[in-house]
């Protein structure tokens, strides 16, 4: 198990908090999703249902089943997974696919990239679920990790992903990725791609 020291931001104090980015999602991480994340998300869904809101208004990704995702890719070299832990709790998960997609941005079209299959942050870090998020920076750390995997594969930091609507501004404005518009072939989600130059600017 490889782990890397990283820092999240405590949203209550604005101070950095030591965290750990761990390569490969473990059984303990999956249990954390089921016993710590799901109850928070489900409580929010029940509150929304009580207000008469439909699943379209529920928090994005509420139906994701990380255990199924991880089981499906077990042992496959093409996939890399990461877990982010802080203060003893799971704060985020990510699944990368190194054998899925080619670049679409003209300046790097046809070259390989690392595709970000899924990123999720703990429900207590999401403004869609709690009024005051606990930690910030999960997405930034995960995207930096994806860039490092891309570099490790000699792909020069090139990554791509389809964004859920609530995260579009993050990928466009914070990460500086190129917005290639809505993709009719992938659930109508907006596709973003990071060039090697953008990767250098974002993560150095």
């Amino acid at each position, binding site marked *: 198990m490889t782990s890397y020291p990283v820092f999240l931001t405590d949203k209550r104090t604005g101070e950095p908090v030591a965290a750990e980015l761990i390569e490969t999602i473990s059984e303990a991480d999956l249990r954390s999703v089921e016993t710590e994340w799901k109850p928070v998300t489900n409580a929010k869904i029940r509150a929304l249902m009580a207000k008469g809101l439909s699943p379209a208004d529920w928090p994005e990704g509420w139906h994701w089943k990380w255990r199924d995702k991880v089981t499906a890719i077990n*042992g*496959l*070299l*093409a996939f890399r997974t990461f877990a982010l832990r802080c203060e003893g709790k799971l704060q985020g998960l990510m699944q990368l696919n*190194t*054998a899925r997609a080619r670049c679409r941005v003209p300046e790097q079209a*046809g*070259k*390989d990239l690392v595709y970000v299959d899924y990123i999720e942050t703990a429900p207590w870090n999401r403004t869609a679920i709690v009024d005051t998020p606990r930690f910030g920076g999960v997405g930034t750390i995960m995207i930096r990790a994806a860039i490092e995997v891309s570099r490790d*594969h*000699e*792909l*020069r930091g090139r990554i791509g992903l389809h964004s859920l609507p609530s995260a579009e501004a993050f990928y466009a404005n914070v990460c500086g990725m190129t917005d290639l518009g809505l993709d009719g072939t992938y659930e109508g989600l907006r596709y973003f791609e990071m060039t090697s130059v953008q990767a250098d600017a974002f993560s150095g």
Partner: protein
Amino acid sequence: MKKTMTLNLTDTEMQVLQDLCDKKDLSKTAVLRQALRLYQLVDVRLEQGGKLFFEDEAKKEKAELMVL
């Protein structure tokens, strides 16, 4: 930890490998590692009962790729 191996290729195979390196802007090692990832993924999916297709949307053609 990474291990080193010697690979014996014909001239043609080496030329194909070099062409892929030039096209993808990758080293030979990186191309072969990517090929291994893809080959394993395809092999496992086929073992699970999946099929691999190439589709030409313009010509409306779809051909199953037989992987030995």
